[in-house]
């Protein structure tokens, strides 16, 4: 689960990380009032769950209150497009107004769980304030990773290493870095975060400070952090994905035209891949999971058809625990109820595959059947191309 910058900063503050908090506004009037109260230059920052906001025009430095008003007007309600939002962008509902100080230097600091070593990794770079992905790609030597074994936690030598990477000389700055690293580590472990990112971590006239903040939480651990779960902002999430989650379906919207319904995450990904291999594009990722009851299948159909780009549907079920006949019944019900007239290709394999096929064939509806995933993909691509022209 992602949270907004202002929420991340509040958490940073609680864990001792030096940060200037600022205030959030949802209207221009409120933004102006906040800017006035700070009595000096401010930053007006769009609050959306995506990075690259500055480049997209969602972050503005404002010298005067009038500037802040202009900025708030421009940013609130805008469709902010960044490299992380996708081409349709994300509507800005909130802005954060923070006092702006003089920045002397900008760094990058992040903490995350390292999968390969099962340790906590701190990622440090002198190249702050820019897209870290680009730094990683072009100048990987400028990024250092310091692994911390959870058995020992943050030690002095870890932070000394980071300070060397950042070229910190000032004793006060080094101490502030130690406090920052300690705070991030505690936040990560105690609140089950999966990623903490400060970009940029700055030296200002006041000292070392987190000028931005990003936190991702482990969804699987939210059950033990009701305080964190409350920070969720569903407006930032894809509406169809939120709805799918209600039925315990795993749905991710994509840009293609072939709607997919599959059991199992790996097979669902492979199905998307094979659709592409045969010349079309998947419209979604959809894993109906292990307990694919007729009700869930019907819900899955409803959700994937809400995407108006879908021109045909591919159902790929490998019945293990899931029985193909039950899935078949769900498909027939859903197609009848929602009066779906798109081409549907069904591939059943495994438990009760024959019974499932019989149900589809004996219904008064038209389905194309396939025996393998490759055959199913070929058939669906053919029908999409026919329909499209």
């Amino acid at each position, binding site marked *: 689960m992602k949270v907004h910058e202002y929420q991340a900063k509040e958490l940073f503050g609680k864990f001792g990380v030096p940060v200037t908090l600022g205030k959030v506004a949802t209207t221009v009037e409120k933004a102006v009032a906040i800017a006035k109260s700070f009595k000096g230059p401010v930053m007006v920052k769009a609050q959306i769950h995506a990075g690259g906001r500055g480049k997209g025009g969602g972050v503005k430095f404002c010298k005067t209150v009038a500037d802040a008003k202009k900025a708030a007007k421009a940013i609130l309600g805008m469709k902010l497009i960044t490299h*992380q939002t996708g081409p349709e962008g994300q509507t800005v509902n909130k802005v954060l107004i923070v006092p702006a100080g003089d920045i002397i230097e900008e760094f990058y600091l992040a903490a995350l*769980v390292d*999968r*390969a070593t*099962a*340790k*906590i990794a701190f990622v440090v770079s002198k190249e702050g304030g820019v897209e*870290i*992905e680009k730094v*990683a*790609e072009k100048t990987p030597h400028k990024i250092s990773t310091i692994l911390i*074994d*959870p*058995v020992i936690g943050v030690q002095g030598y870890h932070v000394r290493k980071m300070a060397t990477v950042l070229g910190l000389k000032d004793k006060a700055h080094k101490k502030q870095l130690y406090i920052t690293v300690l705070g991030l580590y505690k936040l990560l*472990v105690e609140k*089950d975060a*999966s*990623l903490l990112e400060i970009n940029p971590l700055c030296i200002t006239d006041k000292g070392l400070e987190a000028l931005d903040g990003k936190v991702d939480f*482990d*969804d*699987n*651990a939210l*059950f*033990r952090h009701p305080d964190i779960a409350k920070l969720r902002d569903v407006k930032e999430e894809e509406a169809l994905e939120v709805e799918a989650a209600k039925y315990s379906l*795993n749905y*991710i919207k*994509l840009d293609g035209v072939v709607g997919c319904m*599959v*059991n*199992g*995450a*790996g*097979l*669902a*990904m*492979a199905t*998307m*891949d*094979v*659709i*592409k*291999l045969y010349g079309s*594009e*998947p419209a979604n*990722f959809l*894993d109906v999971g*292990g307990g694919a009851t007729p009700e869930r299948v019907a819900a899955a159909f409803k959700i994937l058809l809400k995407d108006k780009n879908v021109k045909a549907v591919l159902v790929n079920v*490998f*019945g*293990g*625990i899931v029985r193909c006949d039950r899935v078949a019944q769900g498909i027939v019900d859903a197609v009848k109820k929602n009066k779906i007239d798109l081409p549907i290709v069904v591939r059943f*394999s*495994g*438990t009760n595959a024959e019974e499932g096929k019989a149900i589809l064939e004996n219904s008064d509806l038209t389905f194309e059947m396939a025996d*393998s*995933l*490759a*055959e199913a*993909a070929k058939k669906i691509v053919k029908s999409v191309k026919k329909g499209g022209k």
Partner: protein
Amino acid sequence: MSVLLNKKTRVIVQGITGKEGSFHAGQMIDYGTNVVGGVTPGKGGQKFRKLPVFNSVEEAVLKVKATASTIFVPPSLAADAIFEAVDAGITLIACISEGIPVMDMLRVKQYLKDKPEVVLVGPNCPGLLTPNEAKMGIMPGFIAKKGVIGVISRSGTLTYEAMDQLTKANLGQSTCIGIGGDPIIGTQFIDAVKIFEKDKNTKGLVVIGEIGGDNEEIAAAYIKKYYKKPVVGFIAGQTAPKGKRMGHAGAIISGGKGDAASKIAFMKKCGIKMVKSPSDIGEAMLKLIKK
């Protein structure tokens, strides 16, 4: 021959009285697995199909000499269940539960570090299956056939896809290991490869990976150096967008790492026969074996 699990392995099921646990314990028994009992705290003394239910794993180890455990407990309790099994002396654990917090698995991994005798498969996995002998977990037995190919996979249904094709190609499987779709798992690809390496009768491996992490690459580098038998590979998620979690908690391309294209390129370089579609796994292996 097989690895890790055979018909003699003395298996218990943690969470045997739960909905999932009881259903799959039944399936495991029906498949021929030597299930010797189950554990549900507070339900000790009950019976499951004539088998004893214990309050603790320790009791199960003492009374029915269990050596392996399949875990079907809610994710919030799964780490506890794993720790309990390890402490009781269980040496093979398949944790099927999905949705365990990453931080819990971090602790599990640290705890297992100095216990090389313990093999943990999963979590968030279908478990293990040795055809005609035994299964721990949820793999459907009827698609398996006794044979010579080892299957290692991060995904459940893709494992079944591979098993089915190997069965139809008349190659069969020695043992199938579903290592799980979480970011932090017990047995990783490289560990599984090393396990199969010791089995003379396993004539080749199918390795099914996904986007996210670099587990596949680490194993591929090992295969290139040490594993001389044929290996067929597939990576799911070539069309997955960056930064989105594709169902499995571990299937995510983050920080420009873990994308399918780079994994496939690397695995190819290590001599693994990579197939573009999972439908080609069986045929590809057949070709390599015949050579």
